């Protein structure tokens, strides 16, 4: 890995400022039903169709916890190398909003289910550890729709009561790039674990971003602002850049930074104060009297630990050792579990290095172009392995392989069939090639004489003729060798 130096600072007139960022990520737990009720969590249902009397806070309803959501939180905690707390408590976080029918959110305050952990990031300047402060379980709120009616807000409670994991980082992040790497890593770990689908478009992963700035070298933190509910990595990065610059300007003009909640306006690309949230920080937490403390048996935690899949960091190390990939290749190929599975299947049936190159080149380009996930790839891992094997064995050239690849995408046929039916096999028989080359040379005596007289550029012309005559199927390496030999003679 190249040893670039970390260099993200905001340059003010009075010096350089370091940006300090902490994230509160809200990750929707993958479960069939909600945290405290039996309503479905499926995305995209008709409005208010997945709402029970509990989710809509009818009086007298009792919440009962979904055991799978608890397990999912423990799995995620283990994946973040975190301490799992055998004892945790659910609290009520009180605030008023139209999409929160209970008037409080059931969350965990003093005693979260998961304590401190860590996440490793691969940055161009080396590996960096980001501390996790805690992870707790809480309910999601409903959705307010403001643009369907000029004077009213419409409320859909389908999301109300779905389990969220709030993952709070330490203020260890220092740049928008690190935020990008951190979110992607969290997402990747949770997708491996199957605890969150990480789908940012559907709101399964969103974050509150805490930003402060301080003079380079300063040990104390500056006053922070919290930017609420940002739902894409790009917007997080833009919001951080804007907010850091705003804070530096305030400091340089001798003004104070108010600790406040801000909103990122994606149309204007700026953050602005959310005055309506001024009182909102007065949450008056207290233990929810409807819910007893959550006690976890150590055996349950140990069993979940044993059943965890191989996670990206471990898999990366293994890929580097087992498949002799470089760090970059390994990082890309373990980024999604489905990608790593595909790669392993291909590598086992063909050539590990060539498989990596072709996957990261042509296959990813095609998937990207068609907007497809690898799980929806029109080329199966088995067929892709056959293609790689055909290149490796010299049966087809790299150039022909690209053509075969295109046909595979269109037809879904296996490469063997395509190569045979279209007669695309590489011509690698030295005798055949020699015969063909002799023929070309005798037809172009004038050029041969010129070449021999020193016009060596003509070599390319001869190669071109061979390719033309063979329909691009002549083995390029062999063609070069034979041409050189015959032209010397």
């Amino acid at each position, binding site marked *: 890995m190249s040893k670039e130096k970390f260099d993200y600072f905001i340059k003010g007139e009075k010096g350089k400022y370091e940006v300090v960022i902490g994230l509160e990520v809200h990750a929707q737990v993958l479960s*069939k039903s909600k945290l405290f009720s*039996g309503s479905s969590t499926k995305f995209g249902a008709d409005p208010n169709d997945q709402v029970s009397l509990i989710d809509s806070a009818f009086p007298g309803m009792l919440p009962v916890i*979904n055991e799978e959501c608890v397990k999912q939180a423990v799995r995620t905690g283990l994946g973040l190398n975190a301490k799992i707390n055998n004892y945790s408590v659910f609290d009520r976080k009180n605030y008023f909003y139209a999409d929160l029918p209970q008037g409080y959110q059931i969350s965990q305050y003093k005693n979260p289910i998961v304590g401190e952990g860590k996440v490793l990031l691969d940055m161009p300047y080396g590996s960096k550890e980001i501390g996790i402060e805690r992870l707790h379980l809480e309910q999601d709120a409903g959705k307010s729709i403001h643009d369907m009616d000029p004077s009213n807000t419409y409320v859909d409670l389908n999301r109300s009561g779905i389990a969220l994991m709030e993952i709070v980082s330490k203020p260890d992040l220092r740049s928008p790039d690190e935020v990008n790497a951190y979110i992607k890593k969290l997402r990747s770990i949770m997708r491996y674990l199957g605890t969150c689908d990480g789908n940012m478009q559907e709101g399964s992963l969103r974050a509150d971003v805490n930003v402060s700035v301080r003079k380079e070298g300063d040990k104390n933190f500056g006053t922070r602002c919290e930017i609420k509910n940002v739902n894409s990595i790009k917007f997080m990065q833009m919001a951080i850049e804007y907010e850091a610059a705003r804070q530096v300007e305030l400091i340089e003009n001798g003004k104070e930074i108010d600790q406040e909640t801000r909103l990122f306006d994606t149309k204007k690309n700026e953050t602005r104060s959310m005055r309506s949230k001024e009182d909102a920080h007065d949450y008056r937490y207290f233990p929810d009297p409807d819910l*007893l403390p959550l006690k976890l048996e150590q055996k349950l935690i140990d069993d979940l630990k044993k059943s965890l899949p191989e996670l990206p960091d471990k898999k990366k190390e293994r890929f580097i050792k087992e498949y002799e990939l470089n760090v970059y290749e390994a990082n890309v190929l373990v980024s999604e579990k489905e990608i790593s599975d595909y790669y392993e299947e291909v590598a086992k049936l063909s050539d590990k290095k060539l498989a990596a190159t072709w996957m990261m080149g042509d296959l990813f380009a095609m998937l990207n172009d068609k907007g497809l996930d690898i799980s929806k790839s029109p080329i199966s891992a088995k067929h892709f392995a056959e293609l790689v094997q055909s290149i490796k064995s010299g049966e087809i050239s790299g150039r022909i392989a690209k053509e075969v690849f295109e046909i595979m995408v269109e037809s879904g046929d296996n490469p063997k069939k395509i190569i045979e039916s279209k007669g695309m096999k590489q011509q690698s028989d030295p005798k055949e090639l020699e015969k063909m080359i002799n023929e070309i040379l005798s037809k172009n005596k004038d050029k041969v004489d010129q070449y021999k007289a020193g016009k060596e550029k003509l070599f390319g012309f001869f190669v071109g003729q061979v390719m033309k005559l063979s329909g691009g199927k002549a083995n390029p390496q062999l063609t070069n060798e034979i041409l050189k030999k015959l032209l010397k003679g």
Partner: protein
Amino acid sequence: MSLDKEKIKHVAKLARISVDEAKVDSLTKDLNSIFKFIEQLNELNTDKVEPLTSILNQSLRSRKDEISDGKIREKILKNSPKKNEEFFVVPKVVE
């Protein structure tokens, strides 16, 4: 700890309880005497006592992850003061 009139108004606002201005004085007096009573508890040394979150010495009851509820939109919306076929309708709240 004592409560002043401003604190009383603030708490009332947070709880969305409308308090008659004329009643603020007597409310402040009442709540302060309640607080004073509760504060007697501080005379006890509780350094080594864990906070009690429940009087039942049991763990939380849980349920399996199954879909067993929902699809009762009509019933749910019945209690909405304003509504349409699909949504709760409330006065505009915009940031």
